[in-house]
């Protein structure tokens, strides 16, 4: 296709897209004007029914907990997919050698090291806070989990590769990933054991505003946090191990 034909093709399709956009947008309700009934209903009854002040998480981990279970297993499956694609080739198993070479490869300034080390603890506290207060304030298991998963990155930036390796290789990481994903399903099945439907909120709801309130929303939020943290750590380990291996083979 010549350059002129390509431009013509682009102009025609862009005009078509613009027309479709204009057609789609001209009948939208104005900004902030919500027409559907469900949002208003849920915002009114969530605090009363579930004792959760963050309605978004009351929906995610209770009213539509089954969909969130599916989403969580999407993450689980994609982590498994990366593991499968990047599985080790079966050579280069001398770990001591890898570590010493990696430390040589990372020149880190004192400012960065001190700053990042000071940040690591704060990030752990912040991540745990976000993950455990999901039913009270914005955030929840997913957001808290990702924040927690950035902590090893900060450790990596501070040049402390041994600690990073220790965190990533620890069995707790894998346990958190599978335990988090399985825990969610176990909570759902536990509801069936007490005679309710799958993923019914069967735990005592507690007092609105307390840390341990809103029944299974809190527990599910924590399991999601574990799963997400574990999943991202496993991903990171897979990527970084590959890089270390390549480094070794390159030298």
């Amino acid at each position: 296709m010549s350059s002129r034909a390509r431009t013509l093709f682009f102009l025609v399709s862009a005009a078509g897209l613009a027309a479709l956009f204009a057609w789609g947008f001209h009948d939208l309700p104005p900004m902030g004007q919500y027409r559907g009934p469900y949002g208003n209903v849920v915002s009114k009854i969530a605090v009363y029914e579930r004792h959760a002040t963050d309605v978004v998480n009351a929906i995610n981990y209770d009213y539509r907990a089954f969909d969130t279970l599916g989403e969580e297993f999407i993450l689980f499956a994609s982590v498994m997919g990366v593991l499968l694609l990047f599985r080790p080739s079966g050579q280069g198993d001398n770990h001591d050698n890898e570590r010493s070479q990696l430390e040589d490869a990372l020149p880190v300034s004192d400012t960065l090291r001190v700053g990042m080390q000071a940040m690591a603890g704060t990030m752990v506290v912040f991540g745990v806070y976000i993950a455990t207060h999901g039913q009270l304030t914005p955030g929840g298991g997913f957001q808290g989990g990702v924040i927690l998963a950035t902590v090893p990155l900060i450790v990596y930036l501070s040049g402390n590769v041994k600690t990073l390796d220790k965190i990533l290789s620890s069995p707790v990481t894998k346990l958190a990933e599978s335990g988090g994903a399985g825990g969610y399903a176990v909570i759902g099945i536990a509801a069936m054991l007490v005679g309710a439907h799958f993923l019914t909120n069967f735990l005592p709801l507690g007092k609105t505003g307390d840390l341990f309130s809103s029944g299974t929303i809190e527990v599910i939020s924590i399991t999601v946090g574990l799963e997400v943290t574990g999943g991202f750590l496993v991903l990171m380990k897979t990527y970084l191990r590959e890089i270390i291996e390549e480094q070794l083979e390159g030298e």
Partner: protein
Amino acid sequence: MRLLQWVILLLVAITAPGVVLSRDPKSQVVTLSVYGLICALMFFIFQAPDVALSQITIGAVMLPLMIMLTLTKMRRQDLRRGQKGQKK
């Protein structure tokens, strides 16, 4: 409030082409990260703090990280292939 919303929408409209127009993958990662932060700010201004929190961590940290790691891995693979080619 309205003004703030217009300003942030304008910023999104400015940074989004920036991501597309930066051709070098390495600089694209940086622009993508900035775009992720601006998007997070937009979600916050439009009163969706839950989405904003996810967007900060995913859009501004995790996605650029994954791309960076992939780029590093690809570059290493290229280097290795080049060396093997020389040996032969």
